[in-house]
């Protein structure tokens, strides 16, 4: 078999790349080792009748991609919950940040008048700064050695956007990027629930605590897409798997072929050029271009192999930081969790408050202590937890009156000291359950099904090296021109005709599809150049 382009992995970014290339007239084949498309965007049946987001619980794909690929035509239905974030506390009051900002400010006033007054100003500043960063996230990192006209133009544009911020915001941006998210939250706000909700945005999936320098940069990056610091992204009706299905439909409509249950054994390299792939079945598929949605380590050190790469490149690739910290616990429950701190609200308001992300507001120090445990290869008794209950806005996911609860549980370090995840998996699940039950008593007895996905499972079942959800730490030393490596930030690799398109490349912000879209652009450019 022979194709123009073979794409390894049908994750969100792989499908985006496939759709764009197919639309440009390429003959594209996507090979997926699992039994369905989506990668980290998947919905599976946890127990009969309960369908739950298996991994990622929000779909935050770039709206420009939704439009460009007509995803709504291909079955994507976007749900925007009324609440951005609900922060239940151990006390009597929860902080609910409604999507309606005036209503959110009102909630904040219940905790602190000064916070309520500062909140709109913070959001305004954040969104202006995020807009500059969004420009960066939507452009291909420049080449340092041979910058071309487009690179210079891009830099100029970013420079102008930066200066256009005006002094106050421009200096803020420079200060914020290397700061810790705890310091940033402290500078603006005094109420603990608001601080911990904001701090949580700077640690997601990372080996950073809220007091680690650079965590504010992560908050900005993850918030760049929508220009706001809280809970970016929306839900897809049918769960994240429905987003993957819409992407696959768009790719197929454009002519791409997608094969599941096709595991790659190796990327074939002749000389220094990729010529195709060999499947674990022995089947060889040749292609002029190979694009990998797998993470950089797995692609280059695993599928290509160190023998084809220079020793210095191999050393740097090995040093790419990718120690995952995020675990996933999914629950099927027979009743909506009843949070103590919401009990004075009416039932309908309770449900609305819980319709977005729920970040257990344990306090910045508690999050930091959970991180402390991870530094020494353990996990804390009170982890940081973010929940969603997608069945509130999408009742089809569970039988009537019942719900699915999806929990991000952090920190669960990939490397456990003196133990391993196969023996600690259930204990992590128990710790998560107990923590949730502290805020919502009775939760433990409502559980009818539970699934725990540890970083080890993320590596084994979904091919994420180190179980890192972003395919490599999203930190100042692995961002933009240094993602995944300095000198290799433009989707190309040392192997001719082999490209990367996953979250391990710029901007790397997970399931927003931007990496895939930019990779498609670069692959097309490269092909245009190589044509006689």
């Amino acid at each position, binding site marked *: 078999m022979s194709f123009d382009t073979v794409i390894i992995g049908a994750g969100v970014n792989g499908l985006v790349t496939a759709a764009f290339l197919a639309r440009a007239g390429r003959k594209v084949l996507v090979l997926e080792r699992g039994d369905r498309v989506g990668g980290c965007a998947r919905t599976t049946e946890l127990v009969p009748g309960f369908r739950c987001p298996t991994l990622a619980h929000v779909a935050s794909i770039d709206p420009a991609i939704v439009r460009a690929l007509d995803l709504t035509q291909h079955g994507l239905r976007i749900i925007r919950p009324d609440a951005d974030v609900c922060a239940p506390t151990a006390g009597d009051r929860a902080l609910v940040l409604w999507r309606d900002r005036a209503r959110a400010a009102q909630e904040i006033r219940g905790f602190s008048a000064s916070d309520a007054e500062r909140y709109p100003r913070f959001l305004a500043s954040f969104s202006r700064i995020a807009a500059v960063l969004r420009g960066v996230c939507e452009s291909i990192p420049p080449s340092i050695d041979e910058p071309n006209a487009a690179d210079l133009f891009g830099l100029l544009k970013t420079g102008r956007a930066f200066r256009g911020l005006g*002094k106050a915001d421009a200096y803020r941006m*420079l200060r914020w990027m*290397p700061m810790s998210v705890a310091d940033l939250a402290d500078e603006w706000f005094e109420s603990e629930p608001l601080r911990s909700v904001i701090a949580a945005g700077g640690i997601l999936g990372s080996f950073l605590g809220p007091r680690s320098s650079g965590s504010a940069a992560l908050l900005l990056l993850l918030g760049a897409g929508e220009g706001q610091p809280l809970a970016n992204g929306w839900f897809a009706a049918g769960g994240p798997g429905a987003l993957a299905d819409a992407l696959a439909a768009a790719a197929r409509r454009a002519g791409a072929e997608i094969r599941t249950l096709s595991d790659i054994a190796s990327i074939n390299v002749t000389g220094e050029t990729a010529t195709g792939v060999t499947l674990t079945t022995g089947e060889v598929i040749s292609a002029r271009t190979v694009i990998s949605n797998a993470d950089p380590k797995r692609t280059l050190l695993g599928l290509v192999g160190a023998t084809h790469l220079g020793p210095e490149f191999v050393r740097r690739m090995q040093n790419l930081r990718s120690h995952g910290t995020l675990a996933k616990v999914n629950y099927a429950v027979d009743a909506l969790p009843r949070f103590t701190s919401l009990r004075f609200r009416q039932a309908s308001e309770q449900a609305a408050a819980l319709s977005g992300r729920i970040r257990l507001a344990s306090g910045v*120090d508690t999050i930091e202590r959970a991180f*402390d445990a991870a530094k020494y290869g353990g996990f804390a008794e009170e982890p940081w937890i973010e929940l969603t209950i997608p069945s509130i806005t999408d009742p089809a996911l569970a039988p009537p009156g019942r719900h699915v609860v999806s929990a991000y549980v952090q920190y669960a370090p990939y490397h456990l000291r003196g133990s391993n995840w196969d023996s600690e998996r259930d204990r992590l699940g128990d710790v998560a359950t107990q923590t949730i039950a502290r805020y919502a008593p009775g939760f433990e007895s409502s559980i009818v099904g539970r699934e725990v996905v540890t970083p080890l499972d993320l590596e084994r079942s979904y091919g994420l090296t180190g179980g890192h959800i972003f395919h490599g730490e999203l*930190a100042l*030393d692995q961002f933009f021109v240094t993602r995944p490596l*300095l000198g290799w930030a433009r989707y190309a690799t040392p192997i001719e005709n082999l490209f990367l398109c996953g979250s391990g490349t710029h901007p790397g912000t997970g399931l927003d599809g931007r990496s895939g879209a930019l990779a498609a652009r670069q692959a097309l450019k490269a092909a245009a150049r190589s044509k006689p």
Partner: protein
Amino acid sequence: PEIIRDLDLPRHGLEILPLDGTFTPMPNGDHLWRVNDHARTQREIRRHSTLDAEAYDEYGKAMVEMARFVKPILDMTPPDPMSLDPRGLMKLAFLGKRFRALADLDRYNQVQLMTMSAVDFLDQWFETDVLKATMSASGIIGTFLGVRSPGTAYVLLHHYMGEIDGAFRSWGFARGGTGAISNAIAAAAKEAGVEIRTEAAVARITVANGEASGVVLTNGDELQASLVLSSVDPNLTFLKFMDAKDLPDDFVADVRRYKFRGSSGKVNLALDGLPNFTCMPGDGPHLRGAISISPSVDYMERAYDQAKYGEFSRRPYMDMVIPTLTDPSIAPPGKHIMSCFVQYAPYKLANGTWDEQREAFGDAVIDTIAEYAPNIRDLILHRQVLTPLDIERDFGLTEGNIFQGELSLEQLFFARPLPGWAQYKTPIRNLWMCGSATHPGGGIMGAPARNCVMKILGNK
């Protein structure tokens, strides 16, 4: 070193006695002892790991390259990214050009150094835990960061700054104690015609119409001057010595936001003899260099963890020297002074005050030393404990920060001390800043003042 040359300090009585090596005792009875003699250090590291012995050479070379790259940045007045001043833009272009001129490997190292944590960076080079721990210590000294906090790798470089001159390491003892350095500089200044008055505490800086015109002393004396340079920190300069209403509101807000966060204390011991380290008993050259209590990366990080929540480290990181071994003139015969730099001691305690906790802190230090040199308890003739609060009270360093403000990434280069005010200027005409709170910060003695003076004289 440049300042030592420019001001001809040796002629003014400064004699630097190089600090030979760093001795790190370990709880398991082993030790790591690095000395200036390269071959011996190699052998010592090889005892722990042959790979690390090789890497140590490579590492040293790479760091010298990096230090060479960074040196001109430390010597320049930082540009203001928001100003349209062509000189500033040229400086940015100059930095970009220099970066592009670096070899690929050096670029890679440089980017990592500027952004990573000391431990993440060292992890890529070495496998021996104690070696990484003791090397990472230089990344955290005087900061409220841990060895695993991003941004600490950069400070590792400062250790190599002295070496690029080829002359000697910039870290050493001054004969007669560190006071001798100040005395030599003062002598040089006096010779150049400077008048120095001691016991002349400033009460405020006189400002009229946005212009500084002199200072008023606490004794009521008024001194007129056409230029006022402040080498104290921004908190004292702007919030104590001036009236906030003379300054723009947002400037005052920025000064209030400037982070000090003192994190270290000092314990000075007068000893009746020498400490006897279990892992290397008796007197010997290992006591003549720095003695570092940094037995493992986890030890260092745990010391930081306690400080994050407002407690001093029960088992702190320490850097100890016994200057009397090199310079017996400062103690009676047979007696010794041991000076211990101790981290972490957070200025803000979660419980109690430093006045209440001072002795407990001193005890924790002694307990820690005793784990490695049990005879220490019997030797102590006198102990002086300096907490961050004492450092603030006695030395005018806000929150006891020895660098006049946290050396974290957001307070460096064009943001030191404040974004937009990194060029030694202040909103007040004729008032300048020249202390450690300005670029390039503390630890490189005299550099901020030198840059400031060059700026005033119009040379930069």
